[in-house]
């Protein structure tokens, strides 16, 4: 039996929270900013997450070049503070693809074992 291994650059695989945050940003599109990302994650995963954790993850992703941000207009309901919108960059799409593929490849053929457990 032979394996064909395609080497992925080190550091390309995202952590689980990074993947969840990026998927939330992707889902929200133009409306992706701290509060909406946090609420989207809570609604879809049922997992309570702090706004600090969302920002820390987005900062990490931005430093890696996977997302970018821009400042919106200040609004009254935010006490005159501006929103910080996020969007996914091409490198982010690639990293998300690589991570999702890695997970898919790892779990391939294991569904029966899961069901037994």
């Amino acid at each position: 039996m032979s394996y064909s291994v395609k080497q992925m650059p080190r550091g390309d695989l995202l952590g689980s929270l990074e993947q969840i945050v990026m998927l939330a940003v992707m889902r929200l599109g133009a409306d992706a900013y701290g509060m909406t990302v946090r609420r989207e994650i809570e609604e879809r995963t049922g997992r309570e997450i702090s706004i600090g954790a969302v920002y820390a993850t987005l900062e990490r992703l931005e430093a890696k070049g996977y997302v970018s941000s821009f400042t919106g207009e200040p609004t009254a309901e935010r006490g005159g503070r501006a929103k910080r919108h996020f969007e996914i960059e091409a490198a982010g799409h690639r990293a998300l693809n690589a991570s999702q593929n890695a997970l898919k490849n790892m779990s391939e053929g294991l569904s029966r074992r899961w069901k037994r457990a």
Partner: protein
Amino acid sequence: MSLSTLAVSQWILARLMPPAQAEALIGDLLEELRLQAGSHVSVAGWYWRQLASSVPVLLWASMRRGAWLVSVVTAVASYIAAVLIVLVLQSALWPMTTSSFAHDVIMLLSFVAAVAACGYVAASIRLGAARLLAFLVFATTCAMLANSTGRAPLWYEGSLLVLGPLATIAGAALSGRLRRVRL
């Protein structure tokens, strides 16, 4: 929720993040606070849970960014420098003193001058370092006075405790003002 509670929590968050990010995060919290007010959830409970779970994560992120570490190292180095300056000044001025009162005054003045100078230097490197230095000066002065044998007069001990941190903050404020003038 009271305005002072909000102000304190926002002050804490602003210390842990770059200004633009902190503004956005605080705005997000305020926006969601308004939304939560319309639901059955306890607004204050939700807000404090968010804050309590955010602070450790943001503190860690701030340490990774290096800002926190640089501030701590700068503050500790400035404190050590202040102690050395005080020792040098005191040993130079010691022979000139004749009474214990004059000795106390010289001790106090050299201490105030040293911490003010070090507050100035610390603030020119990082403003947070000067604030931390002021806290260090206050805490170590408290510890020293608590462990002293009690021979120093009350005015001297009180002046050390009050003037030390104030001089540090004054030095930092002077540094900030000069920087603004240069800009």
